[in-house]
């Protein structure tokens, strides 16, 4: 397995002491690791031609798994590969283990030749399949998620009708909101909030970014779309989301 690359991470988590600051650093390191692994998942998803929803499922599986598991026991990249494989099955976009292994191998050894059909290949494949079973057990076989994507799309449709069509067509609201939503999967924010809230936040942020004036009546549009959310909540989610972008700078 590709342990060499992650030895530093594992080492650092073990070698550091248990003081407060260092545990904060530890947390931070874990966060970074998770960020990197999620980046890995999303990248692999693109290379495998996965749609947005299966990728979201894979990330959600990963985050949920590590809510209860620890990094020093499980190899995160292997878990990630198995999450991708499992997500493909759950969301009906079936992927071959061969493709997953090929892409991952190339991710870690850029520019290399494809793997040979040798013992190592079969071992890797077996590991992926075994890990999948492990994930299933860890998650109590609850592997289907309500994703914010369909909420976002319906919200987009409703808000589009509120706005002038020309204003809509010249402002890339849909793309920005969609990108924001996809990027939110780099961190655990995606599993900590209701899908409606996430979708709403993404749309809110997109509209806010471009300074689009949405007409308001007795209630704001976002109050209508989701009854139980407050502006403060929206803003806190937004902050979490934007924090991820900052994290990117630190991790990569």
């Amino acid at each position, binding site marked *: 397995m590709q342990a060499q690359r992650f030895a530093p991470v594992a080492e650092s988590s073990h070698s550091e002491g248990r003081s407060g600051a260092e545990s904060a650093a530890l947390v931070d390191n874990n966060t970074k690791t998770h960020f990197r692994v999620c980046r890995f998942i999303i990248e692999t998803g693109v290379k495998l031609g996965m749609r947005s929803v299966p990728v979201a499922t894979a990330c959600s599986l990963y985050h949920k798994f590590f809510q209860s598991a620890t990094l020093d026991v499980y190899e995160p990249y292997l878990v990630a590969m198995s999450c991708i494989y499992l997500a493909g099955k759950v969301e009906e976009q079936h992927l071959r283990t061969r493709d997953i292994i090929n892409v991952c191998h190339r991710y870690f050894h850029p520019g290399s030749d494809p793997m040979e059909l040798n013992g190592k290949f079969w071992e890797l494949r077996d590991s992926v399949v075994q890990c999948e079973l492990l994930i299933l057990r860890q998650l109590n076989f609850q592997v289907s998620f309500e994703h914010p994507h369909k909420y976002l799309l319906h919200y987009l449709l409703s808000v589009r009708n509120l706005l002038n069509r020309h204003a809509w067509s010249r402002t890339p609201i849909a793309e920005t909101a969609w990108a924001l939503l996809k990027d939110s999967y780099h961190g655990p924010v995606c599993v900590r909030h209701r899908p409606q809230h996430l979708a709403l936040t993404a749309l809110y942020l997109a509209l806010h970014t*471009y300074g689009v004036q949405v007409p308001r009546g007795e209630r704001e549009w976002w109050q209508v779309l989701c009854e139980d959310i407050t502006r403060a909540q929206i803003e806190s989610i937004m902050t979490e989301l934007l924090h991820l972008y900052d994290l990117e700078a630190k991790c990569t």
Partner: protein
Amino acid sequence: MDRDLLRQAVSYHGQSLFSLLKCEQSENPDFKQVALDLSKSVNQRDKDDDSPVVEQFIARKADLLFAPSWKTTKPVEDEWQEDLREPFAVMPPLEQFMEASYEERREHFYRDVERGDIVIGRITSIRDFGFFVVLLCTAGDFERDVEDLEISGLCPIRDVPSTGNHDDPLSYYQIGDLIRAGVKDIDRYHEKLTISLYSSSLAPNLDRIKLGVISKEDLPLHYIRGEKVANDSSETYERLLDSSLGFSNPANVDVLIGKLGINDTQSTSLMRGLQSKHFMEDDFASAIRKKQSASWALKCVKLGVDHFKSGRHVEAMNEYNKALEIDTNNVEALVARGALYATKGSLMKAIDDFELALESCPTHRNAKKYLCQTLVERGGQLEEEEKLVTAESLYKKAISLDETFQEAEEALRKLQMRIQKTLKLKAEEASKEKEKQPTVETSAEKLRKILKEEKRLKKKRRRSDSSSVSSSDSDCSSVDSSPSSSRKKSKKRKHKRRRSSHGSKKHKKRVSSRDNRTPEEPQEEEEDEFPLPVNISASFINEKHTLAKLLSEEPEAEDRLKSGGKSREDSRGRFEDDPFELAQSSKTQGQHNGPGVNGRGRETEKQRWKSDDGHGSRKDSSSSSHRDFSRSRKDSSSSAHSEHSRKSDRPSRDDSAQSSYRGRPEVSEYERRDKADHRNSRGSNGNERRLSSGDRSRPSEESHKKALPANLLDIFNQIAEFEKEKKQKK
């Protein structure tokens, strides 16, 4: 960078954003161009929420967010149709939930409505210049809550399509009708709307939608849902969404992505590392898989080649097939397999493999070489099989592939020489064959020849004593002519019959008939009283001839008949003659044995066509025979059904039924068999009957034969009497 967008963002967020932008995007050359413009439009906005985080984000990602290439969605311009299946949840306009104010909604409506939109309204008044409509809702993609806005539109009379008749088109409409119309013109300042019922007023993607009067069921879903919400204040957007069928559709994400024009497969992200330009084509799964398959297949091929060299062909083939399973159209595997096929002798398969290999890799040296060799070898095989032209084409192909291939050229030369030789031979043979042609014969033809010779002999004999032909026989001859025309096959039986035949009158008849119909020589031999021959194939062929002759003869026979009695004419005229009438007419003609005669006539008809009947005597009654002929003609041309019906027409006449059964002339053996089946199924006249009748017929035959001359004599006598009477009357 999109200036308008930036301006909008900056004016929304204010100076703080602008300064941040300047800070973050200082290196961006695009921004520098825009910066000057922006500084003019910035004004300190009175914001109720100050979000530095957001502004920081915007500033950092401005190069992505405001890039013109960021806008990847394309407005979907397909046919819009009300999707009744609801692939996604259709929600009422948000305005309704938001409880926006009257003025705002009205203002927004007039701002946003465009020419070509669809509106639905109710007719409030009809004038002579058009009708007024108060809007209920909008349709198409433009969804607004307008019901209580009291927006009215006018549909002028020229925009009302005419109903076709020359009435006033407005009379078709009534107050209270629901109308779906297209917006033709908007006067935003005066808040006036002109609508039209013509599809031309609609936007191109909407023009399939029917305009005009609609019913309540045609109202758009969002309006219906909106009504529900209006009536039930506890219905929230969320609840409505969750309860919609379309929301549970697993594919709604894909549908909506298409509808909104979002690109889902490309990497759209605001993360720096996930920009699509960072993705290499080679890193994608499909590219890696291809390379991998090729290398795995190559390993198998190498193994296979080893097997091949050691002579283990079966294992080699297995390896090659395995390689081709891993990687179809793998060039090396195809070439190796082709070589194996060629060695084993399956040259066609080898050629296929080589050609396939060359398709993917036209410069493969081995493939070309092997292909040439195999083509030449195959050419040699074909040459042995005498397929010279194909061989030639193969040689030419081999040469075109590889000009230096000596063997191919030599083989081609040899082949061409050979072709010339064979052509010469063929020419000689052809000329020989023409000479030989007459010697090829079928048994039928032989038989015919024999008969012809006999006829000739007989002719000579008969002509010698034909001097005593009487005029009265002309009638009889006419009688004979038609029946005999259809009898082509009475060869063997003819012989027999002739021997046992009857008097000179018959001879006379024959002679006269012959005289009358000299052009139709072959038929002369066939006479009434001769029984049918055994069913041989030749007779089968001849049937058709006789039928054709029948058809050609019918008018002739008719003409002849006209010279006869009136009854005959009557009977002849009616093709659908009733059997009784036939019987009667035949009786008037002097046939004492009416049904019997008819039966006989039909019998004889049948005999011509059938194999197992031994009936001899042909009928004398011209009319009946003509009728039979006409019937026969019709029968032959009609389906078995009509024959059935005809048969059913004669249930009462036992004999006639029986004989009509048999009297049906048959065009083909199959029909005969069919008829036999039909007859069997009918049950009325079963096989037994036929057989028994066959038995009966034989004695009756004899009796008929004996009776015939008697009948004929009677006829002649009667005719003579008739004429005498005429003379007497005169």
